[in-house]
């Protein structure tokens, strides 16, 4: 189920798990996503800000009504605008971890977690016992009596997760679960969250704009741009074969679209790239910036790809320098600081770029 590809309109719905077509029309913006997931699966909605990820999450929770489409969970229809059917958020077996957690400030951590069970009619003592159990699982037993404002970011995140899980949801939604944390805390919380999500037996959908979070936490990525799915699949597959510039920049690859004829791919601009794959028809070609070599003079190289380019800009990228090049094939190249100094690169300087065919990866578009 992990590499389950796009479920088509006519496909039979999952008896268990999530099966949804979310359409939300909001003035100039239209969200239209087909989303399916099996129990136990963790799906990440990945996309730039404003892509509609949070709207999709709110629609799943019932906080934003669907304009069209349908939402089914474990075989039960939760929303179907066409039939004027809409189960309100409080009656959906859905738990949400909000981006800034929204822990109730007047309640202790324990009472925050007990809130859900209490609303479901569990007697007070029993609800608090359950909540204590959840906090224990999160390693927060000693913080049970603390008010949210006294919790650290990482603790608040875990309380929010415990609060959402305490209602025993069949669909767990996480909105940018790590965005509110500093870098150090993120590492710990990400590891903890990964463990809890792995234990979670129902569907989990998380929204993030951070590719690392998505790849570490999710079994499957759904990349959303401008309200639509542009690519979905296993994290490894997506990072190897990006299909849009956004994903390519996320995973740090140069990406081109062109027409393949054997080992030669001709791009729309006329430039050619020689690849090892033997393909015909429309293709993508991707290669990492570190695979590019720059030369001051025309090299006498065995590399099959040689382009004359010009330096447009440079910026430090980790311990490397990322060079932005324009010309017949605009590309990014990663160089060591020493190499940049040796070539005395500066904006406007003409250079020769070479790339081995074995470093490229071509795949059908």
């Amino acid at each position: 189920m992990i590499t389950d590809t796009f479920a088509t309109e006519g496909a039979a719905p999952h008896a268990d798990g999530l099966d949804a077509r979310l359409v939300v029309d909001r003035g100039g913006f239209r969200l239209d996503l087909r989303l399916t997931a099996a129990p136990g699966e963790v799906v990440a909605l990945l996309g730039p800000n404003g892509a509609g990820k949070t709207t999709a999450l709110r629609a799943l929770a019932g906080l934003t009504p669907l304009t069209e489409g349908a939402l089914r969970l474990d075989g039960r229809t939760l929303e179907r605008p066409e039939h004027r059917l809409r189960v309100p958020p409080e009656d959906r077996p859905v738990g949400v971890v909000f981006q800034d957690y929204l822990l109730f400030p007047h309640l202790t951590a324990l009472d925050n977690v007990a809130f859900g069970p209490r609303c479901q009619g569990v007697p007070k003592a029993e609800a608090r016992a359950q909540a204590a159990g959840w906090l224990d699982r999160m390693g927060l037993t000693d913080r049970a009596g603390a008010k949210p404002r006294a919790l650290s970011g990482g603790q608040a995140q875990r309380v929010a997760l415990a609060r959402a899980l305490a209602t025993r949801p069949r669909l767990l939604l996480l909105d940018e679960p790590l965005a509110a944390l500093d870098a150090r805390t993120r590492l710990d919380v990400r590891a903890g969250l990964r463990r809890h999500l792995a234990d979670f037996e129902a569907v989990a959908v998380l929204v993030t704009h951070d590719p690392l979070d998505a790849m570490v936490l999710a079994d499957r990525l759904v990349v959303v741009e401008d309200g639509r799915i542009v690519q979905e699949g296993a994290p490894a597959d997506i990072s190897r074969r990006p299909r849009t510039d956004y994903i390519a920049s996320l995973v740090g690859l140069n990406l081109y679209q062109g027409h393949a004829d054997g080992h030669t791919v001709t791009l729309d601009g006329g430039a050619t790239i020689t690849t090892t794959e033997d393909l015909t028809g429309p293709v993508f070609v991707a290669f990492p910036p570190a695979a590019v070599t720059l030369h001051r003079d025309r090299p006498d190289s065995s590399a099959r790809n040689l382009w004359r380019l010009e330096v447009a800009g440079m910026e430090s990228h980790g311990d490397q320098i990322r060079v932005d090049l324009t010309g017949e094939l605009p590309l990014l190249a990663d160089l060591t600081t020493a190499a940049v100094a040796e070539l005395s690169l500066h904006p406007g300087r003409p250079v020769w770029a070479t790339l081995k065919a074995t470093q490229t990866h071509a795949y059908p578009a």
Partner: protein
Amino acid sequence: MTERNAGPEPKAGAGPEATTGRKAGAGPDAVTGPPGVLDSGTRRRRPGVPRLRAGVPLPLLLPALVGLAFLVLPLVALLVRAPWRSLPDQLTGVAVWQALRLSLITATAATAVALVLGVPLAWLLARARFPGRRLLRALVTLPLVLPPVVGGVALLLALGRNGIVGRWLDSAFGITLPFTTAGVVVAEAFVAMPFLVISVEGTLRAADPRYEEAATTLGASRFTAFRRVTLPMVAPGVAAGAVLAWARALGEFGATITFAGNFPGRTQTMPLSVYLALQSDPAAAIALSLVLLAVSIAVLAGLRDRWMAAS
């Protein structure tokens, strides 16, 4: 809002200014403002702004001092002329306690009415989206600026024995409101409730509605979300509004005397008996006034943090 940008330097303008700017559009509730962090920040830098220096121009200083005297002098006079020696006797008179008791009971009852009706009304104004909301808001605020006597007359026309609703109340249920203790409560609630509504609405507007959403995703109905999440979060604003409404009800004179009359033991509240006593027994009037002054100061002290500093 940190300690650092609470200083007088350019950055300070961005902090508190932005705060007031956000509230400014909200009208009267800008005065109430959200209690807590924002206010404490504003309060902290207040003293630094209008610091009295040697160079205060006389044309400003003089009227300012006269104005101050104008406000304080009557209260000083009240304290100076108070019959301190006979005060214990004055205050142990049956009539005084009757009036005070009636005032406290009716003001508290009016506050209760204002709470029960006013908090939902404030919620409606702050959260619900419906056409004519601005008009409704204006109508709610109207009793704030309406002369209380006019309010009393209007109440008579509505709830009086021959009023448009009062006639029906009388014939169907045998309920008569004017010139009864219940009428006092009605008159006081009419005048005091807008204070509560405006105060609570301001607090509700400042509260993040997403907490209610979070509560519904946890299985709470919208009402449960309001009761268990929103209400506790805006409790300070509700309390401030209730105290204000209570103080306003306690001092109510015009609407009460018009709608409920002036019957000792039944509708004669403290302000009415002060006015009445002044004509026969000034010493008693002063004693009664002192009691009301004490209550007012207590209220002011209680509200100082939330109400006075915000404006």
